[in-house]
C-alpha cells in the first residue's frame, strides 16, 4: 500500500481544499462594475454573483460573474491581456495555454479567444457569426460560439472583444443552449452595450 500513500495524501489535500473553498467569498455585483486591468467598466441592471474568487487561479485576468450558478451560466470579463500573457493559466509548461501576441490579426484575435475557451475545458468550440461590433466605443469584434461540456451538454456562447493599447479585452458569456442561453442573451446584450473605457 505504500505506493498509494502519495495518492491518499493528494486526496486529503483535495479534501482540505474543498473545505477551504467553502471559505472563499462570493460577492454580489450590481451597478457599475469596473475591470481595472482592462480599463473598462460595465453596468449591471440586476444582481449577479461574483465568483471570481473561485476561478482566479484558472483565469487570473478575468472577473467571473453568474446569474444562476456557474454550471448554468458564466460571464467572463477579461481585461488587459497583453503580449505574452494568456487568458487561461496552464499548470504545466509542457501544455501551454494560448498566448496573446502583439501582432495578431483580427482573425487570430478571434482564434486566440476561441482556443482559450477550449482551454477552459469546453469541447468542440466553434466560432460563428464573427462580425465587427463596437466595444465601449472602440472597434471590436463580436463572435458567437457553439460548444459542449465534456458530458455533451450543448453550450451557447457570445463574446465581444477589442484590442486597446495593445491589450486584449473581452466579455464572454457561456450558458447551456437549452433555456439559459436564450433566457439571458438580452441581458448580455445590455451588458455589452454598457461597456465603457476610461479616459
Amino acid at each position, binding site marked *: 500500500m505504500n505506493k498509494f500513500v502519495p495518492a491518499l495524501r*493528494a486526496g486529503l*489535500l483535495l479534501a482540505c481544499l474543498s473545505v477551504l473553498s467553502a471559505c472563499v467569498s462570493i460577492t454580489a455585483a450590481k451597478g457599475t462594475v469596473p475591470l481595472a486591468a482592462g480599463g473598462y467598466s460595465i453596468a449591471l441592471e440586476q444582481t449577479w454573483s461574483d465568483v471570481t474568487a473561485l476561478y482566479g487561479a484558472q483565469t487570473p485576468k478575468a472577473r467571473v460573474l453568474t446569474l444562476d450558478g456557474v454550471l448554468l451560466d458564466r460571464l467572463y470579463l477579461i481585461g488587459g491581456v497583453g503580449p505574452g500573457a494568456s487568458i487561461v493559466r496552464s499548470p504545466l509548461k509542457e501544455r501551454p495555454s494560448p498566448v496573446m501576441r502583439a501582432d495578431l490579426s483580427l482573425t487570430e484575435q478571434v482564434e486566440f479567444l476561441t482556443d482559450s475557451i477550449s482551454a477552459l475545458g469546453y469541447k468542440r468550440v466553434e466560432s460563428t*457569426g464573427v462580425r465587427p461590433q463596437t466595444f465601449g466605443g472602440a472597434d471590436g469584434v463580436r463572435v458567437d460560439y457553439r460548444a459542449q461540456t465534456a458530458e455533451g451538454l450543448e453550450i451557447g456562447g457570445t463574446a465581444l472583444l477589442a484590442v486597446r493599447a495593445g491589450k486584449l479585452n473581452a466579455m464572454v458569456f457561456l450558458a447551456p443552449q437549452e433555456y439559459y442561453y436564450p433566457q439571458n442573451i438580452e441581458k448580455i446584450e445590455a451588458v455589452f452595450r454598457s461597456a465603457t473605457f476610461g479616459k
Partner: protein
Amino acid sequence: MKRRRGSCVLSALVLAAATFSVAGAEEREVGARPAADSPEAGLWVLSDKAESEAKRSAELNTSAELREYVRSVACKVAATHCPEIRVYVFDRPFFQASMAPNGYMEVWSGLMLRAESEAELAFVLGHETGHYVNSHSWQSLQAVKSRATGAMFATVLIGVAGAVASVNAGSAAAANGGSAASAVNSINSVTSGLINAVYLGTVASLFSFSREHETIADAFGYDAAVKAGYQPSAGVALWQRLIDETAASDFPKVRNGQARTSVFDSHPVAADRVAALNKLAGDQTGGEEGKARYRAAIRPFLGPWLRDDLRRRDFGQSLFLIDRLGAGGEDLGVINFYRGEALRLRRKDGDAAAAEAAYREAIRFADAPPETWRQLADFAERRGDHAETARLLQTFLDKAPNAGDAAFARMRLARALGAPAPEVAPLAAPDPVAPPGSPVPVAVAPSAVSAALQADLSMPTANGTRP
C-alpha cells in the same frame, strides 16, 4: 496501449478478470462474465456505467462508418472474442486505446492519426486485446490489494485517483511507477485540461499495468495481428515512430522522457520493447499492410483531428506528425494547410514565411480547406497588398460563403477594395431566440463588393498591387 485509458473501459477490464483464474496464466473464456456475487462483479457494474457515460461524451466520434471500420479490425485480432467487443472512437488528440472487461473498447483520434496502416492499428488493438484476454487489470488489482476486497479497493482507488487528478497533483507520486497516482499524474502531464482529468483518473486507476503485462500484451498483439494476416513489422514501426515523435517535442522534459503509448502509461516504450518485437518479427516478410484502406477510413477526419492536435501546442510533435502524414503524397491540401497552421502558431524565426509557403503549397491541391485562402489574405494584408488580399478573401468567400467568419471576411474585403467601410454593428439586440451561429446580417452589399472586385481585378498593376 499500455496502460489504458479508456476511461471506464479499464475498469471494465478489471471486472472481466473475475472470470478467470488467478495468476493470469489462463486466458479468459469466450463470453465469460464474472459471477454476480464475485468481487469483480462490482467492477463490471462500474465498467457498464463508464460505457454508458462515454456514449454521452462530447468527444465521442459519431461516424458510424469509422466506428464500424475500427470494429472490423478489432474483430480480426480479437478472433473468437469479437462478439464481446463494442468499439467507440473518441476525438481526443492523444495516443490511446483500451478495452474493458465488459468488452467496451476506446480508440482515440490521436492514435488513429499516428497509425499509418491497418496493420499498425491491428497491432495496437491486438495489444489491448492481450490485456483483456489475460485479465491484466484484475491481476494488477490483485497484486496491490491487501485487506479490502477487490471491489472495495477499486472503489477507494477510483476516488483517490479522481481526487488527485482534480487537483493536478504534483509529480512526486509519478516516481512510484505503476500506482494509480503515477498514472493520474501521467494523465495530467499529458492532457492538462484538454480532457476530463477526473473521468480519466477513474480509468487510470484501474489500468496501470506492469512492464511484464506490457511485454505480454505486445507479444499477444503481434501474434494476433500476424494470425489475422497483417504485416509482422507493423508494431515495431509504430513504436519506433512514437519514440521519434517524442524526440521531436518542443519541450525538453518531453524529449528527455520516454515515448508513451498511452496517457496512462507509466511504463513507456523503451528500446527493449522495440527489440523484443523486432525479434518476434525476425526476418518475416509479407502480410497485409492495408495502408490505402486505412487512409481512406481516416481521411474525412484529418482536418478536425489535426486541429485538435495543434491545441496540444507541442508544435514540434505536430510537425513531425504532419510530415509523416504527408510523406505518401496524399491529402496534400489538408496536410500543407495544417503545416502552415503549426508554423504560424509556433512563431519561431522564419516560421511566418514558412507558414505562408505551406499555405501556398496547399492551394495547389483540390482538398485545401477554404481557410487556406483566408490565412493567405492575412499575409497579403500585412504587406499592404490590397488587390491580393481582396482576391484571396473573395476566393475564401466563394468556397465558404457560410463560414462562421464570412461577414467579417466581407468587411475586410470591402476595406481591401477601398469600398466604404461597412457599418459597425451598433450593438443592436439580436433575435433573442436565435441560437449562436445563426446567419449574421452582412453590412456590406455583396453585389457592390463583387462589382468593385471585378473592376479591381480587371486592372492589375505590374506588381499586383492595387492602383
